[in-house]
């Protein structure tokens, strides 16, 4: 057997976008390995929605937990579902939850861990993982050592796979047996909502990101308008989040989100390496900056040298005009 498993988080009975992306990736790798894709489902309503992962590419789904709880609390059933299951790989999202669970898997079972990867393929019966390392200075490929256990744990960056709708239909669903783990002791004692709705940057095709140059919370209003006419969402550098102009959930970079949109517009952002690692995988990068020597000029596709306060509103108006015409 050479199945490939993937972590599938559910919210309100529906798989998240990352679950659907990983389902497609697992199905592709499993086809190459001669096995099937196995969903490891958890989160509110996972039991009800699990069969639906069949449409996304899963042959089987194991439900690890269906409650609202910190993701790490499913560690016990997760470890038991992976142990001795003959899996080639377990794909996990390169998010905090995905990393927590992957780390626990690596430590509990002594498995090779990789990531975050930007491409995976099967080679000689094992995964070959391509990563951007040393803050983008190198592209490396890694494989399990010959003596390593057969199952690899792979953190997959969002946007590496596109969800597929061509799956074979319903997946066979089973419930993982309960299993204890120290992680079951982690609990939420308080939850606070700070912002009404925050767009999922990882899923956005167009991102208009603002930095220190935007200058204020009010300055971000012009970026919101540009994002709206483009059908995109707003993101930010750490400087803008630190200043309190936008919530930290919008921060892109090393300690924020890693994004892969079709278009990334960097407005008043210098392009520090910690920011760059979060957005360099964008297909098209446009920068608006008044400093012709800003580092972002070294990796943008289009670099507009000028004052953002003059250019952004005009760009919004121009796009609106063309759409109306």
């Amino acid at each position, binding site marked *: 057997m050479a199945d490939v498993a993937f972590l599938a988080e559910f919210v309100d009975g529906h798989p998240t976008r990352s679950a659907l992306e990983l389902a497609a990736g697992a199905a592709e790798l499993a086809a190459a390995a001669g096995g099937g894709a196995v969903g490891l489902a958890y989160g509110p309503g996972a039991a009800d929605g699990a069969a639906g992962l069949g449409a996304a590419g899963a042959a089987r789904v194991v439900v690890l937990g269906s409650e609202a709880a910190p993701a790490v609390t499913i560690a016990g059933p997760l470890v038991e579902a992976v142990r001795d299951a003959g899996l080639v790989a377990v794909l996990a999202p390169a998010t905090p939850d995905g990393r927590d669970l992957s780390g626990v898997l690596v430590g509990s079972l002594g498995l090779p861990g990789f990531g975050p990867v930007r491409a995976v393929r099967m080679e000689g019966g094992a995964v070959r993982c391509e990563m951007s390392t040393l803050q983008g200075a190198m592209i490396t490929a890694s494989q399990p050592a010959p003596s390593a256990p057969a199952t690899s744990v792979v953190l997959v960056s969002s946007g590496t796979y596109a969800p597929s709708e061509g799956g074979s239909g319903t997946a066979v669903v089973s419930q993982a047996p309960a299993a204890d783990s120290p992680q079951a002791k982690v609990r939420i*004692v308080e939850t606070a909502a700070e912002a009404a709705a925050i767009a999922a940057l990882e899923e956005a095709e167009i991102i208009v990101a603002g930095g220190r140059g935007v200058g204020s919370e009010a300055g971000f209003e012009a970026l919101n308008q540009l994002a709206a006419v483009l059908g995109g969402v707003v993101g930010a550098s750490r400087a803008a989040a630190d200043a309190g102009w936008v919530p930290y959930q919008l921060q892109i970079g090393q300690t924020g989100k890693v994004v892969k949109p079709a278009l990334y517009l960097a407005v008043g952002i210098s392009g520090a390496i910690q920011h760059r690692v979060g957005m360099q995988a964008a297909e098209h990068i446009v920068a608006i900056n008044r400093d012709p020597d800003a580092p972002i000029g070294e990796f943008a596709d289009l670099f507009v040298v000028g004052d953002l306060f003059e250019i952004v509103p005009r760009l919004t108006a121009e796009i609106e005009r063309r759409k109306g015409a």
Partner: protein
Amino acid sequence: MKIVVCVKQVPATTAEKRYTSELRLDRAATEAVINPLDEYAIEQALRLKEGGVVDEVVYLSMGPDSASEALRRSLAMGGDGGVLVTDPALAGADEWVTARVLAAALDKLAPEVSLMGMASDDARGSLVPGAVAAIRGVPLLAYGSELRLTDGAAQIRRLNPTGFDLLEAPLPVVASVTDQVGEPRYASLKGIMAARRMELTTWALADLGLDPADLAPLTRVVAADPPPAKPPAQVISGVAPDEAASRVADWLAERKLIA
């Protein structure tokens, strides 16, 4: 109450990075610093000590002899002691090996909180905190924007999609914190002098009861290449804002990025 902060020596962000013919980072060629994200963990631990919640802050590093420099730099910020785990058998350690060794050293030091930065600058996998927690059999509280300690329990404030959660687990725990805990302090001259005089503890694998034969890395790098060069940006400069806006719109339209 004792906190052990794990610190890793990494190449400086701005340093040029090279690989050796064995596809390992050429450490001799690069300036080494404390992993910047570990400095936030140090800052968090020192704040808890200043708040009277923690009695002792000890640093733990695994690496070559030269990693003792990272311990001295950490001690210069504050703290009570440093332990270096160094052994020739550890060259080429991966996440699994690192986690095994750190877990064994932490078992011996027996802190209530084993604290780490959210990721290391060079690999960015963030797998080690979870792996160490699993090996030690204690709860994991990762990605805290703040660590709080109460009677018998630890809490972290962790971002969720629209706000934050306060997560709690009974002590002992493995925890990691982000750069939101607050800017790391600079080392004072007095701190640097005191750190220089401090005795560091050095352990080899045998001191931890670990057998090098059990510590073969489970992963290996099979290729390392610089990323493909990107063509230089097209530049729009020295034109009136209206003209700039119109040319950006043209550029976007050509690439079908505006409907």
